[in-house]
């Protein structure tokens, strides 16, 4: 089985039915994640990161649906599994952490029970056993005094603690893949650092692959081995995280890297005007023809305005979707 990717996404399209018509909220999404690998998905708000993740775990709900393409998990095509089989995967082998630890937990249920549910659902434990396992799970995410904390309700925990509980839930059944959708945007930087480290260490210990979603390039590059950049529903570039910052290939990636003030750059290079990416992100119902970045791209030519670029392999490894890439 070695060598076979853990999850493989091919030409995935996600449709949004807004009542009158269907639009593709994301399309042509292809990537693969190996066992134990860390893979990052970055891009700005609304570019389709979360819905891609939801598609992987089978949680798209109307008005969103999978329009085309294929998701293969551990060799099996997920879409064609029965609902029950899908549920067996969900939580058990693919787990997910959400952005808002505040609202992602049920406010009227003790956190211990919310963890214990996982063991009852997937491991067939009794509630009593599951409760004990929940204490252990809490301890493993380094929540102090876990025996006491299991009975706490979410509102009694701080944001960082809640996110730890979310991680405990996600990792309870030892999944093969952990999808982390912006797990730290709601948290302070110092807390973010702790959560990220905790997640990274636990997954490394258990060989769990991570799909990490964020709009923070730095964070993703720091955590992940490979990074895919999304723009307006498409992956525009996919690279090893060491390269993507040094030698971004897609004009959008380049723009992003250049436009953000990086810590230390003023001290090193002095204060210069930041590079701007002109224009605004297109609305989902109104994607431009051709390359979706073309209205904002300084290098755009006629072909960019009419023909959607295909994903090209880069010599240095990785993919880019641009007619004019270096």
């Amino acid at each position, binding site marked *: 089985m070695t060598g076979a990717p853990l999850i493989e996404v091919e030409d995935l399209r996600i449709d949004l039915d807004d009542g009158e018509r269907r639009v593709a909220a994301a399309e042509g999404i292809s990537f693969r994640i190996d066992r134990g690998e860390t893979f990052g998905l970055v891009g700005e708000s609304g570019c389709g990161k979360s819905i891609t993740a939801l598609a992987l775990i089978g949680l798209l709900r109307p008005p969103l649906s999978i329009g085309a393409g294929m998701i293969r998990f551990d060799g099996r095509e997920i879409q064609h599994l029965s609902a029950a089989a899908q549920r067996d995967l969900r939580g058990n082998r693919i787990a997910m952490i959400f952005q808002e630890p505040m609202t992602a937990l049920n406010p009227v249920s003790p956190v211990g029970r919310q963890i214990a549910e996982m063991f009852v659902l997937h491991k067939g434990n009794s509630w009593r056993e599951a409760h004990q396992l929940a204490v252990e799970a809490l301890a493993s995410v380094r929540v102090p005094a876990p025996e006491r904390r299991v009975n706490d309700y979410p509102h009694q925990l701080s944001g960082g603690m809640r996110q730890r509980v979310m991680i405990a839930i996600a990792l309870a059944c030892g999944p093969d893949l952990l999808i982390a959708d912006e797990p730290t945007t709601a948290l302070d930087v110092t807390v*973010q*650092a*702790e959560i990220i480290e905790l997640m990274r260490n636990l997954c490394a210990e258990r060989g769990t692959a991570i799909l990490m979603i964020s709009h923070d390039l730095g964070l993703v590059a*720091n955590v992940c081995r490979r990074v895919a950049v999304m723009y307006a529903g498409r992956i525009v570039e996919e690279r090893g995280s060491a390269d993507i910052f040094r030698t971004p290939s897609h004009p959008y990636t380049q723009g992003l890297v250049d*436009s953000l003030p990086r810590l*230390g750059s003023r001290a090193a290079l002095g204060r210069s*005007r*930041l590079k701007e990416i002109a224009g605004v992100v297109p609305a989902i119902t109104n994607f431009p023809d051709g390359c979706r970045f073309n209205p904002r791209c300084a290098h755009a030519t006629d072909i960019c305005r009419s023909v959607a670029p295909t994903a090209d392999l880069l010599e240095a490894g990785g993919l880019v979707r641009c007619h004019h890439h270096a």
Partner: protein
Amino acid sequence: MHEPRGKDDLILSVEDLAVHFPVGGGLLGRNRRMLRAVDGVDLNLKRGECLGLVGESGSGKSTVALSILGLLAPTRGRIVLDGQVITGRPSGDRKALARIVQMVFQDPYASLNPRQTVRRTLEDPLRVHGVTARSEIEDRVATMLRHVGLRPEQADRYPHEFSGGQRQRIGIARALILNPRIVICDEPVSALDVSIRAQIINLLLELKDTLGLSYIMISHDLGVVEHMSDRVAVMYLGRIVENGDWREIFERPAHPYTRALIAAIPDPLHHAPLATTGGDLPNPLNPPNGCAFSPRCRYAEDLCRHEPGPVLETRPDGHAVRCWRSEEIAGQAAMASGDNGHTQA
């Protein structure tokens, strides 16, 4: 770089500002406790300067800003704006204050009234402040729109017809329409699309120069703060823990919290594990004994935990720190320097 300037260069000074909120307790006021959101803050802002204010969520940054804006009555302390003491004045003076200090808000979606056109949003303040001539109003609105990079024709649209970046421009235009001297920016870009942020940062910097504004820049994003500020103040649990020139703060952070903060920023080119502090954020209702940071501080000693909190000591170069052990830590850091401030946990 930090040559002493004259006292009259100060456009804002905040002295020993404290804001306490009563929390809990019902009608009968039982078990009502005081939340010391801001507890003895001193700040100075010079003309044309940008002061960066950073700190953990809940450390009191916005509270300081709201006090300066006259939206919160301080429990104690004095605020001097452009030579006038504004604390303890009746709230009727809001109008006078409005012409000196203005604010740019974080969320461009929530900070524009969805039921008002851009024109009304910009014209009403002028009218409130006694500008009545139709032509003058139109003039000023058009000028301001051009200043922030919008076209005057767009004035008759409603906020939902604009993108996030454009809305933030409108928010900036609204803050500047009364020609204030000071603009407080509370997280002006954190709600914006990543690719838009640079536009707004550049715009703010431009306007500062062309209009001779002073900024107080509140942000989580240390990159932005570093880029924009002349001076930086770091807050922790309602107090300033470090205050100094931007270069001092970022290159030679003296307070362990500042160091932890900087170290926690993932560096895209430097894939080291992130530095962690451990411990949880303190409960502002029940602050720790001694130095507020001591429960999370890797340098903390008994002294830090038990003595009443340290005072803010200002060094000759203007760099101020509130820490018992800043000297020793600075020494250690010097030894371990070269790792760009990233400390291993």
